[in-house]
């Protein structure tokens, strides 16, 4: 396929996740929903289910309001809304890690709001690096395994080892794509977003194949003229209207620290020991994220260093409204960028946004500043 055909394919899937889910169900596959973030997809995959990302959608909140006060982030609220409205019907379960306070409440509400889809909690440690932390991560995984066994899944270490390899390959493919995209300003922000977002709704095997093909095709393509290079940071940046503004403003994302995009692909499962321990070690090795404790806050430095290394002229923070982990980090990121002389601006976004005028004005001012 050509670059454009591949992007068209990658656009189709996130444009209608429900259709994709129904296709898999019709093929007799069982689906397990994966709420953000760092759901152990490898385990779900190894046990014979298709893991599907559940990060909510740009939708009006109605029924979710019966459960959530207005000051919970729209990602969590819209996951609940979709669940109540039957958009996830047919899924065998939802796995929800509780890495932020709002996610803790999602699981509790889910049990009563969407009783037809079992809730499987994944409890991660914050002190994940010492041996006792790895042991606790493993215990959390074992809990998920037990719950999935009740739903007909079967676990074996060999199968997990194979799935770990599938996911490592996907990680590598996404990292490679991300590097290549940094050199191709002609790829739009909308297309870039599709490439990442489609990963939530396709099997990793299918997605890896598409991404590897895309990367290879892009490498053959002569890069367009450079636009204004930026680093994009945040939890989620998939709103088409938001990406359209980036494109309209001639901004080129040369690196991202977006949880739903590159942030999740930084760490691979190590190849040592048994597969489950190795997976727990992957979690131990993860960092550079607002919901993973680290008193040294390496994420802040990572953003500054990456922005410099990739030649980004500025950092654009797409802040998901009411996301307190990101709101805390933002202050430290802002200070670090300012002292490194990297312009930074913040745009608040949420999943109910219909008016993007404020965002457009902010981004326009930011663009003008970068091009001064």
């Amino acid at each position: 396929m050509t670059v454009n055909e591949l992007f068209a394919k990658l656009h189709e899937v996130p444009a209608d996740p429900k259709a994709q889910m129904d296709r898999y169900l019709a093929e007799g596959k069982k689906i397990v929903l994966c709420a953000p973030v760092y759901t152990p997809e490898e385990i779900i995959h190894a046990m014979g289910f298709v893991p599907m990302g559940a990060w909510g959608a740009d939708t009006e909140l109605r029924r979710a309001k019966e459960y959530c006060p207005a000051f919970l982030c729209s990602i969590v609220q819209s996951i609940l809304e979709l669940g109540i409205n039957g958009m996830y019907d047919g899924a065998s379960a939802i796995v929800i890690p509780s890495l932020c306070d709002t996610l803790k409440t999602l699981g509790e509400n889910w049990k009563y709001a969407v009783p037809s889809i079992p809730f499987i909690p994944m409890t991660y440690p914050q002190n994940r690096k010492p041996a006792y932390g790895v042991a606790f991560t493993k215990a959390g995984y074992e809990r998920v395994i037990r719950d999935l066994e009740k739903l007909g899944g079967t676990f074996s270490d060999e199968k997990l080892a194979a799935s770990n390899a599938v996911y490592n390959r996907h990680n590598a493919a996404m990292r490679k794509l991300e590097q290549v995209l940094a050199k191709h300003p002609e790829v739009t922000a909308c297309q870039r977003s599709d490439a990442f977002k489609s990963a939530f709704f396709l099997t990793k095997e299918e997605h890896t194949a598409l991404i590897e093909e895309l990367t290879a095709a892009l490498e053959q393509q002569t890069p367009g003229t450079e636009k204004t290079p930026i680093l994009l940071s945040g939890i989620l940046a998939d709103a088409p209207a938001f990406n359209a503004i980036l494109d309209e403003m001639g901004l080129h994302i040369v690196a991202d620290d977006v949880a739903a995009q590159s942030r999740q692909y930084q760490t691979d499962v190590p190849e040592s020991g048994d597969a489950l321990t190795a997976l727990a070690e992957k979690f131990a090795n993860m960092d550079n994220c607002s919901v993973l404790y680290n008193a040294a806050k390496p994420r802040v430095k990572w953003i500054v260093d990456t922005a410099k290394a990739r030649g980004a002229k500025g950092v654009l923070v797409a802040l998901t409204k009411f996301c307190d982990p990101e709101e805390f980090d933002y202050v430290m990121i802002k200070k670090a960028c300012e002292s490194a002389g990297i312009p930074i601006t913040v745009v608040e976004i949420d999943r109910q946004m219909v008016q993007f005028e404020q965002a457009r004005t902010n981004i326009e001012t930011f663009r003008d500043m970068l091009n001064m």
Partner: protein
Amino acid sequence: MAEEVKKAPRPVDPNSAKYKLGKIAADAFADAIEAKKKGIPVAWVSSNFPVEIPETLGIATVYPENQAAGIAARGAGERMCNVAEAEGYSNDICAYARISLAYAKLKSCPEQDVAMPDVVLCCNNICNCMIKWYENLAQELNIPMIMLDIPFNPDYDVSDAQVQYVSAQFWDAVHQLEQLFGLKWDDDKFEEVTGFSCRASRAWLAATGCAKYVPSPFNGFDLLNHMAVMVTARGKECSGDAMETLYKEYMENHKNGTSTFRTEEKYRILFEGIACWPYLRATSTGLKSRGINMVTTIYADAFGYDYDSFEGMIKAYCSVPNAINLEKSRDKRIKLCQDNHVEGMLIHTNRSCKLWSGFMYEMGRQVGKACDIPVASFDGDQADPRNFSEAQYDTRVQGLMEIMEANKEQKGAN
């Protein structure tokens, strides 16, 4: 001069619980300031961090949540929040955190000064917001952070894996502090501290348990103040004594038919959530003027750190209100309602606290149904005065009262 004509405050009997508890709470701040001068290490500590650690090691403690509550109650919440917001902190962030981060910048706030820390001791059994807040404190103040992670427990009981994980961290935290400040852990001291903590906790449970009497021998708003001692000083010897005095006083009130709720108690409610510190008077008067006594809150249960083994202690820290699932949280409230003859539930939907408020609608419905009581909620914030409307509060409380009234009439008719 204005001061001279001011009425002298009613003297408080130095043997009263009120005096003792007030003194302990005030001394907690002063002691840390003194300790700092003497070169004793000072820690800023999360309210539900195992106090047994700093108490045993002899580290002076400051509880930023307690400080923020004091600042908010004295009317400086908004001013401090504005300082944090000017730094770039969103006004969606917990107001305690905003106030504390503002203090870290200013290092002064006449409404409640504290000693600056040499280390921060963070425990996230009440929220993960705490992690982010303390990470930023550690960075801004360039001091070490000790993190004791107690994850939210989605199950009813505490698992062995969780006990092992938290126990390992407990000792890890001890060792880190020993190394940082050249201190030495002393098992005998530890035993003494746990003894104090359990004694204070038992007396607290007994005192708050006096709400079972009708009328209640106390106004539940008392608990919001006395709670400060359970947060900041439960590991100190004097706290047990003061709490026992409180219990005795409540029992005497009961015997004498008196109460610190100084009006006729017509209705009894469970108040859910943190107090609205900037509007303590308004929220209290709104109830009292209608004869509504908030006889109980989850705090009555929250500081019941009574345990008889190390594992018991760990489990207690794993079972604080914000660390437990909906069913366990619900059942605790149901028990409080049943034990204390509660007739209605008033929920503070606290904009600062995503975790506490995040599944409260559903829990409120379940508690209401199980206890057959009306449930009302109002919007507020524990420390940012901009998120509360007196008019809304009044309407909601009035609505709650009317249903309680109708229920009473119905019961009377049967």
